[in-house]
C-alpha cells in the first residue's frame, strides 16, 4: 500500500535536470506514495544549517512499487534554497516530509474543469490535470508566463499541448495568447455556456494577484474556484502557525494554516 499519511523520509536524487527556467527532479524514496493533487512536500537537501528551513514544493508525480517509490518535483530557482537544489546531482541525498496539506477537491457534481497555472504554478495544477486526464474528464488548461521561454515544455502537459484544450498565454505575445492568463480566462469565460452536464470548476495556482483576479472573474458566475496559496513555511505540517492566511469562516475572519487547512482553499473564503 502506498503511504498517504505524512512521513519524513531520506530520499536519493535520481535525476535533477533543467529545462528552460525549470528544473525537474526525480527522487527515489523508500516506499511509493499516494497523494492528492495540490499536496506538497517539504524538501531539504543541503548540508549545514543555512538555509535552515525546508522548502515547500508541490508533488508533481509519484511512482514506484512496493519498497521502491519515486517522487517528482518541478521547480524554478528564485532564491538560495532553490539554487542549492539546482546544484544537486544524481546520487545526492534529499530529505523529504510528505505528503502534506489539503489538496484539490474533486466532488462529483463538478463536470467541467479548467486548470489555471501562472508561472511555476503549473507544477501544482498539472497533477490535477493528469488525474482528470486519467479518468477521461473534460478539462482545459490555461498557462501564463512572461515570455515563451518561461512556459513549461509541451510534453510536460498532461494529455499533451492540444490546441483548444491548452491555452498558452504570454505577456509579450511570443507564444499563444498575447496577454495575461487572467485576460485569456476572462475571454474564455465570456464565451462559456453552462452545459447541462454539471458545474464548471476552476483550480488555480500562481501569484496571489493572479488568483485574486481569477476569483473575481469566476466567482460571480457561480463557478467553483479552488486556489492553491503560497506562504513562507517553517514546518509544513501544522505545528508552528507561521504560514497562516486570513480566511472567512462562518462570517468571521480567522487565520488558517496554509500548510494544513490549505494550501488549497475555496476562493470564496480567502480574504484577498
Amino acid at each position, binding site marked *: 500500500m502506498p503511504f498517504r499519511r505524512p512521513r519524513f523520509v531520506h530520499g536519493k536524487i535520481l535525476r535533477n535536470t533543467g529545462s528552460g527556467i525549470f528544473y525537474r527532479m526525480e527522487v527515489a524514496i523508500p516506499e511509493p506514495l499516494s497523494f492528492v493533487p495540490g499536496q506538497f512536500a517539504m524538501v531539504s537537501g543541503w548540508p549545514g*544549517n543555512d538555509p535552515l528551513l525546508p522548502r515547500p514544493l508541490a508533488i508533481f508525480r509519484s511512482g514506484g512499487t512496493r519498497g521502491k517509490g519515486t517522487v517528482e518535483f518541478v521547480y524554478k530557482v528564485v532564491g538560495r534554497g532553490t539554487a542549492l537544489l539546482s546544484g544537486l546531482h544524481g546520487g545526492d541525498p534529499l530529505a523529504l*516530509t510528505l505528503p502534506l496539506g489539503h489538496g484539490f477537491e474533486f466532488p462529483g457534481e463538478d463536470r467541467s474543469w479548467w486548470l489555471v497555472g501562472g508561472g511555476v504554478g503549473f507544477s501544482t495544477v498539472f497533477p490535477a490535470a493528469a488525474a482528470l486526464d486519467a479518468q477521461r474528464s473534460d478539462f482545459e488548461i490555461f498557462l501564463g508566463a512572461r515570455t515563451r521561454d518561461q512556459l513549461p515544455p509541451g510534453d510536460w502537459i498532461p494529455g499533451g499541448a492540444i490546441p483548444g484544450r491548452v491555452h498558452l498565454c504570454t505577456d509579450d505575445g511570443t507564444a499563444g495568447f498575447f496577454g495575461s492568463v487572467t485576460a485569456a480566462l476572462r475571454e474564455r469565460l465570456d464565451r462559456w455556456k453552462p452545459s447541462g452536464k454539471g458545474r464548471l470548476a476552476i483550480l488555480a495556482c500562481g501569484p496571489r494577484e493572479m488568483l485574486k483576479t481569477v476569483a473575481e472573474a469566476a466567482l460571480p458566475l457561480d463557478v467553483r474556484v479552488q486556489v492553491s496559496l503560497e506562504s513562507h513555511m517553517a514546518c509544513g505540517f501544522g505545528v508552528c502557525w507561521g504560514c497562516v492566511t486570513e480566511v472567512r469562516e462562518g462570517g468571521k475572519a480567522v487565520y488558517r494554516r496554509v500548510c494544513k487547512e490549505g494550501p488549497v482553499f475555496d476562493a470564496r473564503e480567502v480574504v484577498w
Partner: protein
Amino acid sequence: MTSPVTPDLTVRVGTVLLKNPVISASGTFGYGLEFTPFYDISRLGAVIVKGLSLLPTPGNAPGRIVETPAGMLNAIGLQNIGVDRFVTEVAPRLADAGAVCAANIYGRTVEEYEAVARRLSEVPMLAAIELNASCPNVKEGGIAFGSTPEGLSGLTRRVRAATGKPLWVKLSPNVSDIGAIARAAEEAGADAVTLINTIVGMAVDPRTRRPKLSNVTGGLSGPAVKPVALRMVWEACKAVKIPVIGIGGIQSAEDALEFLLVGAAAVQVGTANFRNPNACVEIIDGIRDFLVREKISRLDEYRGTLLL
C-alpha cells in the same frame, strides 16, 4: 564495569520522572497530536503544547516567520485554541496517546495566568505547567514580567499559589543576568526553570524598506542561538538548586549532550522539529548510543560532569 546494553535514560525534573530527557518545546510541536503520523509520542520524555491562554487567541497578522542564518525569527503572537478547548478536546487525546504532557501557559495579566493555571490544575493527565514569562511577541506575553527579577518573582508567586501542579518557569534570555532571574523564580517557588526562550531580533527588507515581520520584531531560535543558550543554562545551573531544563538550538544528540553536560536536568527541542519531524526521537536514540559507546550506564552519571 561491563558495558550496559540499554543505559538508563530516566531523569527527574523535581517530582516529575521522565523516561528520557528529551521534551518537545512549546510552539514547535503543535498540540502534539500532529506528530502521531511520524512516531509514537509516548516515546518522548514529555510533550509541551503550544502556549495556552484563557481565551482563544488569533495571533499576529501574516509575516510571522523569517529565516535567518542558521536560525529563524518568529512572531506568531501565540495563536491558540484557548485553555477550554485544550482541556476538553486535546488533553484526552494526548492521554490516549500515552504522552507525558506539560502545558505552556501565558496571560495578558497576572489574573489571566492564574485562571489558566487553575483550569489546568483540574487535568490529571498534565504532569506540569510551564509558565511562559518570556514571549517576546505579544506585549502581554510575559516578557514584561520576565525581564526583571522582581516582575518574575511576583508572577511566579501568584501562579504558584494558583496551582498544585509542578511549576516550570520559562525564562527570557533578553536579560543582563540570567542567574539572578533564575534565582528569582526559584525563590518564588518554581519547581524548575526552562531556558532559553527566543532572543528578540529583527529583519528588514532594504528594498521595500519594511520590516519582514508584521510585528516588526520577533524571537530568534534555532542553531544560531545554541552557544548563547548553553552559556545561560550553565550560568543558571550554577545559580539555582532546582532543576534546569535546557533549550535553544538543539538539533542533535551531540547538542543535547552539551546541555546535559553543563548540568541541565532535561532538554527541550524546538525549531529542529521543523526540518526533521523525527528530530526528538533521533536525539533520544543518539543519546542512548552515546552512553553505550562511552560505557556509561546511567545518564545521571554523565549530567553536570563538565571538567573545568
